[in-house]
């Protein structure tokens, strides 16, 4: 399995959790929404962790000076972390309109980010890194 395949699969899993979360808020099912949010947020943070502590680290060490998009990717992770915080606040105050506005923001940021990773970052990682080693190490991240 390539890094691209593994991580794209992770993206799709996160997308499904995101959709589930949004639907629960839309239905005013706040208790379930809080649980779903925690699950979604933890999945995303784990995914960021996998990339930042393993894939990006290894890539930075071996790449050797060509185009390196890891800085931009981390910046976008930070933007999403900020959005998670805002969404959590909306969830706690049960502000449905604000939450759904923020989730739309997150969707665009997330999908744009995912497209860049799937089109570019992961392919570069597959080219320069040992895919099996990277995938196994990323699976260890909790």
């Amino acid at each position, binding site marked *: 399995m390539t890094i691209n395949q593994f991580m794209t699969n992770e993206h799709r899993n996160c997308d499904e959790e995101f*959709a589930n979360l949004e639907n629960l808020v839309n239905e005013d099912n706040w208790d379930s929404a809080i649980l779903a949010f925690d699950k979604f947020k933890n999945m995303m943070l784990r995914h960021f962790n996998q990339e930042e502590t393993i894939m990006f680290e290894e890539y930075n060490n071996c790449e050797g000076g060509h185009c390196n998009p890891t800085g931009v990717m981390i910046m976008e992770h930070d933007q999403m972390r*900020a959005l998670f915080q805002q969404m959590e606040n909306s969830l706690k105050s049960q502000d449905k309109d604000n939450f759904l*506005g923020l989730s739309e923001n997150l969707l665009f940021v997330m*999908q744009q980010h995912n497209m860049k990773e799937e089109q570019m970052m992961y392919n570069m990682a597959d080219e320069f890194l040992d895919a099996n080693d990277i995938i196994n190490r990323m699976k260890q991240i909790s």
Partner: protein
Amino acid sequence: MFRGLSTDQAPPFEVVYRFFLVAPISLIIIGFILIFGDTELILSRHSNLAISIIHLFTIGYMSIIMIGASMQFLPVIIGAVYKNTQTITKYLLISLILFLILFIYGFIFNQHQLFFYASYIIFIAISYFALITIHKIKKLKLTDNTSNFIKLAFIFLIIGLFFGIKLLLSFYNNSFTQYHFNIAFTHAFFMLFGWGFFFILGVAFKVIPMFWVTNDYTTSQIQLFKYLLFSSFILITFNIIFTNQTLKIIALSNLSIVLISFSYTTYIKLNNRKRKVYDISVKLWQQSIIFLFIGTILIWINLFIYIPSSLFAIIFGYGFILTLTIAMLYKIIPFLAWWHSSTILAQKGIFNVPTIKDMIKLQDLKNQNNLHIITIVLLILSIFFNSILQIAGLFIIVSNIYLFKNFLNAIKTYKKLIII
């Protein structure tokens, strides 16, 4: 420390929104032509008025929107980044507007000498942009179905352009070959189903699954689309010289299979999407798909019973393409307004900004869509009851002023935010 989203690959918002503001104006002009023009000429396929209206739509609206959108999302969805976007966009927009002025004036007031300059302008502008886009896509290390289909869309644009220039110069020289009407049909076919539909397919393959969390389009389906569509284009091109009804029927049948398959698949995907929150863009996509489906059925019916070409123009143009582009613009413009403003504000340490949904009010989106649907119904009725055409024209004006206002509201919000 977080300093906002990376806009390094995206052109400035100002560069792109010019296209989105100019486009509805072309539709408003069409409305005025319907009100004040000769009804019989308007509904007659090869009249100067009909040709003017069609090109106000295809170039003044459709191509301007697609080129503007390309500048913005091709860097993001396929990694093809344009340089010197300020210069390119100014040049492109001015050229397209100038072309339209010369073209429309030349046809409506029978000033065919203007077509020499019009041909030159459109040839340079479109072929330049299409060639740099194709070059950028070819340079990509890895391509996917989206980039391949968009590359093909631009190739078809160039081919359609050559047919169009040939036709325009025929009017300039007042010299028409026996193949003139076949070339006109082929030009329309390449532009609508080559440039327009291939572009839409390329975009749909990516954005439908990503925006609304659906399953991907299958590889086998996409390959089938490619082969059937290619065969249609080859057969239609042969038909220019050989004028064989069988070739045309096979070409249209192959095309129809793709259109029906895409319509059905996309409608079902959107119905079964994981994100169930109300989204007007989903409603508009499904509306446009219904028109695509209806138009395809009419293609088959037309093999047995005559269907006026104006009905095809309304269903495919106004019903399918316009509705679908509005669906996408009601996503793209609020996102760009939010994205660019939040980036600028984040650099000032301000993170509490309005959301994407605050950029255009939902009720305004719904109202405009309602006017849009009424307009389409009136346009269809006007084919059978010609006296309704002026009312349809009025609704075109009103619904597209509303469209323009909705776009402008998002842009105004962006401008207010960035000066905080």
